[in-house]
């Protein structure tokens, strides 16, 4: 038996498990798959749009509507949670200031606000007057250098200044004979010093005019500091631009957090779903693991449920439009998807703000505002009140609600 069972290994589950284990709790972390972190940009968004583009995220957090997940946590606690997680990542993997957004180029040359980013990315912050020498790799289809440069060159920096960009290409196969290499194939090749040196020389020879050499985010997955090796050879600042999945910066962040969780003594079960729970009075006594060969009960004093939302199947919509949370049967802010799906693609999608409402401790509540189970906490994408992908608030909500749940368990119930 563990003190706490944490369900989910996205950013929320990993953060909760780490925080709990570092407070001396025995933790069992259970997940079906590795979660969305390795599909992410490998940065930590707090709040990017309200819907106007946000430059000072904590100020914007302080002003959210009362039903937003941030409202009951507060800007100071959100900032502290993000800073705690960044500080736990040694060697440094997330840098920046939770109070100020960076604006980093994307793989189509747009600018994306985010609070904390990897050291290999921050030289790309869009400051007026900055010029980018974008360099693509011919064999890597997910980084269209000409499109990136063209879009950057016609963009205005948030400070109102102009940006400039040039595009160039290198021709350097990572593995001979491979027709369609993924970003990860390149990252693994660049983990080797010799290939990284060849890559750097090719980039140095090809790069056009620009203060910062902008490269696809493939500069090593296991070996840290590959970007420094490349920057030294190129003789200019280098910035990595994250690609569609498989996202190398997302993998770096996922593997770094997983290593911390393991080092903190957390036991991990991968590959089986949690499909139900047993109760003793109102409290959750165990969760049911659908392991090969039949169900197993995992008992604990407290449970943190961090399974994500619709994208991971933690929230379901059936063919009649009925919305449900199938594992614990938790009360949701809406149960009929029909009226929540608008005809316009770009409009607000209120369906994605549907989820579980919580009390100030992070426990799911019923319509009357009472905790459903005294020892069940939720964190991350399951919590109602935010359309995360539009706001760019999902990472910050995950981290802040995970820290809230962990701190309530360690400070409140034991």
């Amino acid at each position: 038996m563990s003190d706490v069972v944490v369900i989910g290994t996205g950013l929320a589950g990993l953060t909760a498990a780490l925080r709990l284990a570092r407070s001396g709790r025995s933790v069992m972390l259970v997940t079906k798959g590795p979660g969305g972190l390795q599909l992410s940009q490998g940065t930590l968004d707090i709040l990017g749009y309200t819907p106007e583009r946000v430059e000072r995220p904590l100020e914007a957090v302080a002003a959210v509507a009362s039903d937003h997940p941030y409202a009951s946590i507060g800007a100071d606690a959100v900032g502290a949670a993000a800073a705690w997680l960044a500080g736990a990542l040694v060697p440094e993997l997330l840098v920046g200031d939770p109070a100020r957004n960076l604006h980093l180029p994307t793989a189509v040359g747009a600018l994306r606000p985010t609070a904390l980013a990897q050291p290999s990315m921050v030289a790309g912050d869009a400051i007026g007057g900055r010029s980018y020498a974008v360099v693509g790799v011919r064999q890597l289809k997910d980084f269209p250098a000409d499109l990136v440069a063209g879009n950057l060159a016609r963009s205005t920096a948030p400070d109102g200044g102009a940006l400039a960009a040039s595009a160039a290409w290198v021709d350097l196969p990572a593995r001979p004979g491979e027709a369609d290499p993924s970003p990860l194939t390149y990252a693994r090749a660049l983990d080797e010093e010799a290939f990284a040196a060849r890559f750097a020389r090719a980039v140095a020879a090809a790069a056009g005019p620009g203060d910062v050499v902008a490269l696809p985010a493939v500069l090593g997955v296991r070996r840290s500091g590959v970007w420094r090796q490349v920057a030294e050879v190129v003789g200019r600042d280098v910035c990595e631009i994250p690609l569609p999945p498989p996202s190398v910066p997302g993998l770096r962040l996922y593997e770094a957090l997983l290593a911390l969780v393991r080092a903190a003594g957390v036991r991990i079960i991968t590959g089986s779903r949690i499909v139900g729970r047993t109760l003793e009075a109102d409290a959750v006594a165990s969760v049911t693991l659908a392991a090969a060969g039949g169900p197993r009960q995992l008992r604990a004093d407290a449970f943190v449920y961090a399974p994500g939302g619709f994208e991971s199947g933690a929230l379901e919509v059936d063919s009649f439009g009925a919305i449900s949370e199938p594992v614990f049967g938790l009360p949701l802010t809406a149960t009929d998807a029909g009226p929540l799906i608008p005809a316009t693609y770009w409009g607000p999608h209120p369906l994605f703000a549907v989820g579980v409402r919580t009390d100030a401790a992070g426990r799911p509540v019923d319509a009357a505002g009472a905790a459903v189970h005294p020892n069940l906490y939720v964190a991350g994408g399951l919590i109602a009140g935010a359309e995360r992908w539009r706001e760019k608030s999902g990472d910050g909500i995950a981290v802040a609600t995970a820290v809230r749940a962990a701190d309530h368990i360690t400070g409140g119930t034991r």
Partner: protein
Amino acid sequence: MSEKSRAERAQHLRERLNNELNRMSLDQCVKCTICETSCPVAAVTPLFSGPKFVGPQAERFRDGDSVDHSVDYCSSCGTCSVVCPQGVNVAELNSLARAVMKAEHGVPIRDRIITQTVLMGQAMTPVAPLANAVLDNKLARFAMEKVVGVHRGAPMPTARTQSLHTWLKKRPAPAKAPTRGALVYFHGCAGGYFEVDAAKKAIEVLEHLGYEVLVPPQGCCGLAEQSNGLFEQATKSVRALVKALRSAGTDLTIVSTAGSCTGMLKHEAHEILGLHDTELADVGTRIREISEFLMELHEAGELPTDFEPIKQRLPYHAPCQLKSQGMGTPAFDLLRLIPGLEVVDSNATCCGIAGTYGLKKEKYDIAQAVGKPLFDMVKQTEQGLAACDTETCRWQIENSTGVRTVHPIVLVHQAYGLGAVTP
């Protein structure tokens, strides 16, 4: 076999591939690439284009003929299904697709030989010194590679002079009367013939805990045949094993030291061979991998932990077919209960052998590259011993690192004071 029967066999397998639930699961694929990033084979060779590409994507084009032969480079480690967050049965689909391809194009004679684990044990045990000498002989291994296609560097089991069942017949009755009732013990082919010492120690640990240990005569689970696409033979093997294990009692817990064979009984025979027998489901739900069983006792407060210290650092590797049972790493948890033992989890995906994959001359180098991070980790952390739950993985680790690799129960046996690890 006639061409007609081969065509019929391919047709039967293709119908399964097209119609079973696994096929539906491919529509759940959202192309997130998590399986691609986790696949240990695609990481080291472009010959395998990755589980998503070969599975949920290429599957849509397999209409009439197996167009993509790179599925043969899948090692069947099962990692893709374990990590898929959407519940796509990637490995099961690819195993079936490979079986169809092999039914269409034929199975190398080599693959028919290396899957006959019981036969190997029965043939080698009476002539153990000779068999071991032949397998240690460079010239013999060179000839074996040329003629049969088993790589000269691949790990081979060591034959023993006495099988487990011969030992069971000859040993005196246990000194202690059972206090906890009876269990059925499943030792697998390795426990029966090649790793007899580990099997004996498992029995002694269970008896020490107060169980009466029933060991019915038992054969192979068919996993090696299954992973080589020989589904009919695998079906016969697993059904015979189910019958044998049930012969000792139909309501007893079955405890196993054969980690991957346990997975075959728990889920693979059902999911990959498509067997829906109630007898299989009965055995599959009653069976426990031995560390899983002991940790269940521990959770219930029923495992004595009066362990003698073992002062040593021990690299431990959780094999793929244990991880695919979705129960965590019970041996890692169990070994950490032993005072003084510093257990270091390899956190490596795969050792590369994947049953018989790494034996094959065309796949040996791939398997070695897959296992390299694990081999490096073992060499860096070992103090004379490593531990791993499945037999072919132990032989692979031992062969590629030179470090003696044992079943975790061997250390539990020592910690209970039942005897030291034999050199």
